[in-house]
């Protein structure tokens, strides 16, 4: 199919951030730098998505069908050169300096082209997110510098979250559920650290990760009170990767089983002590859920764009499929749904920048530091050593806890849950509706729309099933009051 017939979506000139969500115009007026930076990122992302990801998305899906462990390293390297793999790291430190609104734009453009490839490129940024959730400044700085160094050397450095277990999916994401959870993994206190045994499953990037952030309990009969978070380098003795799953879609994103056999984790890699593991997970989810919903919205947009291109050039008799009334109304319906969800996603992203972790970058000490200190200094060994000092660690931790309080976390879990359900339901039903418009022939592999359908379903399941998300939403909004 010749995509260049219609200048729409990925094939339109970016940036169109403010065109798509005109309310951002006021924000652009008042905080020009904030929106301009996001627009720059949208432009970069769209170009990459259109020119690099889109042409390869089908080929990669096919190759991964034959071999779930296939990776297009050339694509990854290209993304890495554009710093997309370290997008969230501040510019001064060597990253792209993506705020949440910039991250939204980035996510939307990439997942519009291909969700799996988008995930492979961007998921790593969650490593930084995980680090930011982590309270200690020293750890955050060191992780960021390690990632920047790896990016410069074009060396892959992948992160992974090991939360799900064979017997616990939803149970690991919710307090009430965790109280009754039957764990498949556990840690024991030993001299100098901990020893981990057990299995985690369905872990994104698990098979290629260098670092795994794992939530594991210390007492299987009391998981909620003893849940802890550990940083486990995959080079650790006793760690191994089991199966890499064959999935319905998002095939390019690897989903693996992780096996821990007497894996020793030193004390310093205990990120959250016993009892705080759930809080760590909840804090991560308070931003990631909203972004997963946004990524799914990007997927829906991708299905729609392919649909429009197809019906534009598909002939029936003397006219085109796009000329039919029923098609125009069906497409309009999809556009309406995407517009409304996108507005909610933008709201979420700007809210994160206003009230959540990224506010740290707006705080006086951080702003001053970024303004006054030279970039080189940020990654110097001396500064990194300084950040590990108790003073800086504790100071940073206090500052962050003030901003990202428990109230903020729970509020964003609630808001994020709503976005996640809306965005993922959107991805699924738009993909299905698009196929209804284009029919059997449009469902051929080469048009990419059946791939959108296959890629969409899992988004309603991971990051908390949409049913669990709804429970969070109810409890967050009304539950407490009853």
């Amino acid at each position, binding site marked *: 199919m010749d995509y260049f017939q219609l200048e729409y979506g990925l094939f339109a000139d970016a940036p169109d951030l403010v065109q798509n969500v005109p309310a951002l115009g006021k924000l652009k007026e008042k905080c020009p730098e904030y929106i301009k930076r996001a627009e720059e990122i949208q432009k970069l992302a769209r170009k990459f998505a259109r020119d690099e990801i889109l042409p390869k998305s089908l080929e990669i899906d096919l190759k991964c069908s034959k071999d779930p462990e296939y990776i297009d390293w050339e694509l990854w390297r290209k993304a890495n050169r554009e710093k997309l793999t370290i997008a969230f790291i501040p510019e001064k430190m060597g990253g792209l300096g993506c705020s949440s609104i910039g991250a939204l734009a980035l996510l939307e453009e990439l997942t519009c082209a291909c969700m799996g490839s988008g995930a492979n490129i961007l998921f790593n940024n969650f490593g930084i997110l995980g680090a930011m959730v982590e309270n200690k400044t020293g750890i955050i700085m060191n992780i960021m510098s390690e990632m920047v160094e790896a990016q410069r050397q074009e060396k892959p450095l992948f992160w992974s979250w090991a939360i799900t277990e064979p017997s616990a999916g939803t149970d690991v994401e919710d307090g009430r559920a965790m109280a009754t959870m039957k764990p498949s993994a556990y840690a024991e206190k030993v001299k100098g650290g901990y020893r981990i045994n057990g299995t985690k499953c369905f872990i994104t990037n698990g098979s290629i990760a260098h670092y795994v952030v794992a939530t594991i309990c210390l007492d299987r009969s009391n998981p909620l009170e003893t849940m802890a978070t550990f940083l486990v380098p995959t080079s650790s003795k006793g760690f191994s990767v089991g199966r890499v799953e064959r999935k319905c879609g998002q095939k390019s994103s690897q989903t693996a089983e992780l096996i821990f056999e007497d894996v020793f984790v030193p004390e310093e890699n205990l990120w959250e002590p016993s009892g705080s593991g759930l809080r760590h997970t909840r804090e991560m989810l308070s931003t990631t859920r909203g972004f997963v919903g946004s990524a799914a919205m990007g997927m829906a947009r991708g299905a729609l764009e392919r649909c429009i291109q197809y019906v534009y050039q598909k002939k029936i008799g003397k006219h085109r499929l796009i000329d039919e009334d029923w098609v125009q109304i069906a497409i309009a319906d999809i556009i309406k749904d995407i517009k409304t969800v996108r507005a909610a996603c933008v709201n979420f992203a700007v809210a994160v920048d206003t009230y959540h972790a990224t506010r740290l970058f707006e705080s006086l000490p951080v702003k001053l530091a970024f303004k006054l200190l030279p970039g080189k200094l940020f990654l110097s060994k001396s500064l990194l050593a300084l950040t590990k000092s108790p003073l800086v660690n504790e100071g940073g931790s206090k500052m962050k806890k003030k901003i990202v309080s428990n109230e903020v976390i729970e509020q964003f879990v609630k808001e994020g849950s709503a976005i996640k359900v809306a965005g993922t339901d959107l991805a699924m039903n738009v993909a299905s509706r698009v196929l*209804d418009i284009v029919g059997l022939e449009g469902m051929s592999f080469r048009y990419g729309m*059946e791939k959108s359908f296959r890629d969409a379903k899992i988004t309603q399941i991971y990051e908390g099933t949409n049913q669990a998300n709804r429970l969070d939403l109810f409890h967050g909004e009304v539950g407490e009051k009853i």
Partner: protein
Amino acid sequence: MSAVEEATVEYNEIIDVCRKFAGNEIRDKVQEADLESDTAWLKSIWTKSREIGLPGLIIPEEFNGVGQSELCCALALNVLASECAGFASVLTYHFAGCIALNNGKPSQKERFLAQLADIDISEPAIATVLFPSEMDENHLHIKESNGKLLLNGTSPLTGNAEHANLLCIFLEEDEEGEEITCLFLDKKTPGVSIGENAMLPGLKVNPFAPIVFQDAVIEDESIIGERGKGGNILGKTKNAFFGFIAAMATGAAGSAYEKAHAYAEERYQFGKIIINHQEIQRMLGNMLTKLNAGTAVFMQAFSDKSLNLSYLSQEASLAKAFCSDAALEIVIDAVQIHGGYGYMHEYGVEKIMRDCKVLQLIGGSSPLIHKNKIANEQKNK
């Protein structure tokens, strides 16, 4: 006994034989075959199915068939689709071809039908049917040259494109679609070739492709009925065909429902076996409602009246639309109930989801079918 079971008691034995066949021969390798798009496996299952008379189910006994009714075929397809919709779809297109052929002269039935029921020939004979579609860009048409009739054009995507050796072709010979011609051609006829495999996400063991005709010679014996007067045959074939798809979709969805129900009775999460969570109960109840409704709708499509409606009425397509829509909703919920496991190939549910989405689009998607029903009604007033 349910109303459906009462209406079908005479077919119980056949349905039982099909169910056992599916369990014994299909179940073991079906996931692997789906992964590999294994058409060789499909062929081997087809060959085995001759032992229970499946390919000849609708072929009259005088031509070595079992001589059963369309309803019986639908019930068989319903049960087979619960193990593999891909295999059932091959039978569906094949049965449709047989139904069309049944309207031919004795010499034509002798020539074409008998081989379809033959259980002794080494290479099994499989039929398929090509229906005209408004989405066609290169309509099939007949050119007359040097006293010969030559078939030209490209068919829409059709099932059994790879497996079939006998093609049943319906052509619209006029702009209004009122002059229908029915032909039978051997796929090996010079000028006939298979187009590119569409690589649909479901029914993987039955590759769909367009069939291309370039000056393929049509003998007199190849025309069933009279040129331009095949509307009656098209009606009978299409009515049954759509009913078969409805039956398959319902069968596949029923299997997804059962898997989800069984999983929900085993899985523990959020403090309970999940079938004790009200939301899971609500979902399963909703799925069962659709399953029951779908069953009633496809059964009704096989009443004598329904089967003999004019091809212009398009009633049968409404049944297909309803049943396949319902089936897709059921299986999407079934995947959801399985959680992460539902998305993994090994568990077999996501396959059913892909199969049902394809079934939903065969013969037109539901919005198109709904629109066309009323549009054509107005056109024919």
